[in-house]
């Protein structure tokens, strides 16, 4: 009896703490629904009593192309990352190439390099190659955030695949590639999902590379859409916050659909810039 009331007290405290933590998210939603004339009201409306969808209409009018670009770049980055990371993880986990340990160390160090330094280096290279302001140049740059992480996740996961499974596939006459494609990859579904989710989210959220390498392109991602809003019309905060809400949708979807993968990714040493 006593423990049940204590549990209830904990739940109440937990709810209060969560509400405090998520207040900025609530505030973003609230401001996105606030009419422009109430924006500078003192005191501010704590609840959207007179909700307006002006802000969201502005998103539809101005931001759809940016959202499309972000989707394209996100998916492209996921494809590139999987293509590089899954075979490498397989090799490091099961085929044991020479210098595999050193490669693991390099990947760990690679994750620690500041994004701005990479951005500056890429700027020079892209300028030479004429890749500035191109969406696929941005895919290459964004993939550098995710590839080392992806290889590490795949290596860790595939190391856990029992050797007998692979030996059995060999006895069936499958070559290395066939074993990789039809035995190892299907078994590694969890790792595939985790890597894909984080890669998409990071590419979707990237600002440093976008601002440096794609500032003047025809196809710019949503992070620059928001940034441009902030720079241009400092006043229309409902439109800015509405765009922010829309830009947060992938994160929300991820949390609802794939919560356990998210926690797995974080604890696997996954770290965002």
């Amino acid at each position, binding site marked *: 009896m006593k423990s049940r009331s204590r549990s209830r007290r904990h739940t109440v405290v937990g709810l209060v703490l969560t509400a405090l933590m998520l207040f900025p998210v609530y505030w973003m939603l609230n401001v996105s629904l606030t009419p422009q004339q109430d924006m500078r009201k003192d005191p501010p409306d704590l609840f959207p009593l007179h909700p307006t969808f002006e802000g969201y209409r502005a998103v539809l009018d101005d931001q759809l192309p940016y959202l499309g670009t972000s989707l394209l770049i996100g998916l492209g980055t996921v494809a590139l990352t999987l*293509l590089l990371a899954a075979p490498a993880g397989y090799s490091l986990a099961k085929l044991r190439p020479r210098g595999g340990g050193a490669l693991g160390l390099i990947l760990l160090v690679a994750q620690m390099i500041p994004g701005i330094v990479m951005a500056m280096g890429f700027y020079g290279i892209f300028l030479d190659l004429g890749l500035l302001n191109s969406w696929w140049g941005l895919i290459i740059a964004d993939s550098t955030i995710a590839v080392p992480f992806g290889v590490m996740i795949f290596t860790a996961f595939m190391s856990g695949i029992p050797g007998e499974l692979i030996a059995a596939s060999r006895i069936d006459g499958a070559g290395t590639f066939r074993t990789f494609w039809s035995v190892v990859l299907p078994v590694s579904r969890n790792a595939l999902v985790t890597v894909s989710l984080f890669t998409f989210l990071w590419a979707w959220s990237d600002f440093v590379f976008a601002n440096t390498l794609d500032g003047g392109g025809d196809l710019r991602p949503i992070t620059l859409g928001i940034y441009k809003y902030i720079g241009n019309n400092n006043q229309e905060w409902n439109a800015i916050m509405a765009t922010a809400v829309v830009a947060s949708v992938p994160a929300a979807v991820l949390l609802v659909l794939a919560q356990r993968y998210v926690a797995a990714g974080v604890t696997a040493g996954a770290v965002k810039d």
Partner: protein
Amino acid sequence: MAVSLRARGGPPRPAAKPHSGAARRPDRGAVQRGARLSPALRRRLTALAYVLPLLVYLAAFYLYPLYRNLDLSLRDYTVRSFVAGDAPFSGWANFRKVLDDPTFGPAMRHTMVFTFVSIAFQYVIGLALAVFFNRHFRLAPTLRALFLIPWLLPLIVSASTWSWMFNSESGVVNYFLHFLGVGPVGWLTSPDWALTSVIVANIWIGIPFNLVILYSGLQNIPAELYEAAALDGASAWQQFRRITFPLLRPVSAITLLLGLVYTLKVFDLIWIMTKGGPGDSSSTLATWSYQLGFGTLLPKFGPGAAVGNILILIALVFGLLYIRVQRRQEA
């Protein structure tokens, strides 16, 4: 590689399953080739083939940009010579220029304050929450998942939301302070408060990471220890002091060091909220580097790259420390 070995076909081995089809059967060609290339060598080549794309990628898109950056910092670039690529070698001149710059001291100090204050708060709050959520109550898993949201949001979303909350005239933070009898604070507009503001926002973003890692560390502490301690009449605080905190030390070390490496290089948040301003009041090495290279109409790529390389050096010191701690724990 494996495909080409299989594709050659050959007489079926008796043991092969009838339904497995010709393409899946091992063949004499492969065996013969294996005889020419020793099996060990072939295995090694196969292993290499699967990491080769990654190696090429790392060379082209990690090593080369880093080399370019180093090159930038050792030459005297102007906009024209940046495009033409014929800037003269200038040795350490850019580094000297940067170290003598009046912004260097403040940027270095802000980087350290930003990093250490952020981490201290993120860790303490994250640990407290992890211990709290470890007391299995109703809704705990759901609430814990909701705590991840700040970490998953795109930084531009968090940064612009906090910017508006910190707005001097219409921000909700000043509105709440008004209730506590505190006059309006120019959070992002006053040089005294800009750094504090970005630190607050950064703590908010970093709490989930600390919570998740420390919570997973708590799962590995055997429950019997707490049961025994409770039988001995240990209070909750004593249990934390004597069991939780000492046993969590390895996980704590990893969390703090990783946090250090990743907080040092925070750029987006500060750039979006204050651009390092007003003046230099919230500029860190990361924002200053970007400011030099891209923030003005007359880019100073050389000094910008030099600051970036100094930042890498600092990050690597803590990064290698992290790797050492991690290796020792695994051993």
